[in-house]
């Protein structure tokens, strides 16, 4: 009689070690294949359609038991850095067709209609590149600080990350956000009307800390030039009034390093100011006594007024809000209760209140503000609405802590005309049709 020990390849009574941190490439591959995690972004659209169908058939409703309840799931570690569920493939940054001739100097928009709360997932933060997205090696990246300073400095990422740091939640909004709507309605959804907008928790060093470190000349210094390391070597002039207040040199975003699209490994953040000033892939800061009149502050990012004057150095993003649900391009699923929800923000500080109208601005109700309400950050608001199945016009109107009330497009056009491109902070109107469709309209 053979012993048990002889029969088994493994010694009896010994526990096989758990495969923590020891997943083989084959194991991971097998797990991915089985769960269909390899579905590409393109196939994702099909997956969504298929998922929709499955729900519609309701074949998995009780008492039947869903297949995922009757099988073993994927192991931990199947994806080292997770991705959204494949059923979320509709949630994508998108370009507006025909807006720009080349994708390297272009913009993709944040899918605001699909997001909750105030934090924008880093993967769908809007993009704006001027000469494409560079791949910057953080070990080779340098930040130079010079000009009207006692001690010109060259800093590595190691150096920068040793300075005392702060984490703050701020929005970034492109100055041209909603710029396509100055003359008339041009785009269908909130992704395209307001999607050059995002809000993140940023971690980095206050610019004032770095300016003190280099000993900037307090008598003559009035501006700081920020320059990117990308092919456009984009430059913007930052007045000291902003630079010494709350401007940050940022490396962290939402708990991870900046994404390449958002300036990895280092960017400037000028809270409350149009996004172009928050120079990505930051490589140089020069302290000076006069503004630079850079291309992006004399040919672009200037606001054309009706008399032919251009407003230069127009940075502050004034009080603004938009309803994200229900919003343009959506289809309501029948009468009854809906929560109207959206985002409000101001480059001048905190949002004080938001009002919501369902009849095109004739009557208003005050919306609830979700904590936290932070300075120069997105604020989530909510209001109750019972849709009676009739036509409706949804609007939101924000007020910031300076008392500035978000204006209408009619008010803005009376002063700025329709050609300025930038800084359109008008009240947005979504028309709800009796068939449940919601569309972007402008009203007077």
């Amino acid at each position, binding site marked *: 009689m053979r012993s048990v020990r002889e029969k088994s390849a493994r010694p009896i009574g010994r526990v096989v070690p758990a495969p923590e941190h020891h997943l083989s490439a084959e194991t991971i591959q097998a797990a991915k294949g089985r769960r269909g995690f390899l579905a590409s972004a393109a196939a994702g659209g099909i997956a969504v359609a298929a998922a929709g169908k499955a729900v519609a058939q309701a074949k998995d409703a009780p008492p039947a038991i869903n297949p995922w309840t009757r099988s073993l799931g994927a192991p931990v570690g199947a994806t080292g850095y997770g991705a959204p569920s494949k059923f979320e493939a509709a949630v994508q940054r998108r370009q507006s067709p025909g807006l720009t001739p080349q994708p390297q100097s272009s913009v993709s928009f944040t899918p605001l209609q699909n997001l909750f709360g105030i934090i924008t997932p880093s993967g769908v933060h809007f993009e704006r590149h001027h000469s494409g997205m560079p791949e910057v090696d953080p070990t080779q990246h340098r930040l130079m600080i010079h000009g009207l300073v006692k001690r010109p400095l060259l800093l590595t990422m190691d150096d920068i990350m040793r300075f005392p740091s702060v984490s703050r939640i701020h929005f970034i909004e492109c100055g041209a956000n909603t710029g396509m709507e100055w003359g008339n309605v041009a785009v269908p959804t909130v992704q395209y009307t307001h999607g050059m907008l995002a809000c993140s928790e940023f971690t980095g060093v206050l610019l004032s800390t770095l300016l003190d470190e280099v000993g900037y000349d307090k008598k003559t210094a009035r501006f700081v030039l920020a320059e990117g390391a990308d092919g456009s070597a984009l*430059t913007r002039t930052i007045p000291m009034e902003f630079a010494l207040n709350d401007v940050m040199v940022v490396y962290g975003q939402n708990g991870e390093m900046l994404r390449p699209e958002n300036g990895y490994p280092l960017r400037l953040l000028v809270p409350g100011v149009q996004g172009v000033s928050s120079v990505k892939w930051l490589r140089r800061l020069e302290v000076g006594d006069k503004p630079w009149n850079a291309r992006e502050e004399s*040919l672009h990012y200037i606001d054309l007024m009706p008399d032919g004057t251009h407003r230069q*150095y*127009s940075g502050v993003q004034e009080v603004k809000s938009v309803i994200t649900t229900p919003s343009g391009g959506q289809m309501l699923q029948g009468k009854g209760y809906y929560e109207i929800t959206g985002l409000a923000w101001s480059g001048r500080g905190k949002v004080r209140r938001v009002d919501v109208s369902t009849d095109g601005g004739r009557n208003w109700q005050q919306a609830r503000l979700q904590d936290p309400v932070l300075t120069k950050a997105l604020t989530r608001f909510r209001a109750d609405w019972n849709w009676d199945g009739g036509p409706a016009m949804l609007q939101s109107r924000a007020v910031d802590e300076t008392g500035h009330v978000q204006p209408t497009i009619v008010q803005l056009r009376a002063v700025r005309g329709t050609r300025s491109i930038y800084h359109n902070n008008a*009240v947005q109107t979504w028309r709800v049709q009796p068939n449940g469709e919601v569309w972007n309209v402008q009203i007077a």
Partner: protein
Amino acid sequence: MSRSLKAWRPLVAATVLAALAGAAFAQGKPAADGPRFGFGRAATPQEIAGWDIDVRPDGHGVRKGKGTVAQGQDLYDAQCASCHGTFGESNRYMAIAGGVKPEDLKTGRAAALRAPDGMRTVGTKLNYATTLWDYTNRAMPWTNPQSLTVDQVYAITAYVLHLNEIVPADFELNDGNLTKVPMPNRNGMSTNHGLASPKGKPDVSGKLCMKDCVQAVKVTSELPDFARNQHGNLAEQKRPIGPARGIDTTFYDPSAAAAKATPVAVAAAPAAADPKALVTKYACTACHGMTNKVVGPGFTEIAARYQGKPDSEAYLAKKVKAGGEGVWGPVPMPPQPALKDDEALAIAKWIVGGAR
């Protein structure tokens, strides 16, 4: 004299403080006006000179050098015209010439900017020539930035100014006259507005009315039905669960039923073997259509010419990378130095294979 004394004063104070602090300083703590942390190292003058390329309207940063309109024309035709047009007229990107009127040069206000559809070009918008020099120097040509010499930047700047009828054909631009070019819109900018400062005054403010605030609501603008689907099928842009769905916008436009929304995938690095992704990544499609001529010939037009010819793949791979002119007309193709050899070959093989 008094200035140099002033500059020394903090140092004197620091010495006194250092003496007072004694033991603390012996442990390496910095002087009161020294760096607090001491991270990084001093940037040397040579290092600063290499990166400090900005040029300001007041002459700060202006480089010694010169270039003529004639020299600029040769450079422009070779390196700029393919995107900006032979006369700077192409508005595919921002038009760099056009719209300047002779009286603008006197007034410093471009009249075109007052007209509802007036031309908004480098000529009519720009207030200082230094900015044109600075941007050309730092960011152009688009696919090969910071490749021009200082004199070449002067020459190209001179030529663009000439295209805008700001300087004559025999003009030489140099470090002595760059800041003095009388730009047509030099008086056209204002910083007197509320958006320049955190404490600025807004132009307009809404009303905080709550009841019966407007009499009648009139829709003044909406998307026409034919544009419902212009951004792709909105049903695919909203998650398929929750209180609202995306509208199926293919409904009114049967011909577009197959069209998919375009997720932004173009920014991702394409696999080296995918030539179609490569021609997008390297912006070849800025000038070449798939089948038709844009600035240069369409890809299938090139395929037709080279199919079946010996060594055509190697020849085209070289051409794609080095650029050239004369084969398809006078407009030259700029070189693509960033393109890797295997990528150039992949593109060439794809073209010769019929560009499908």
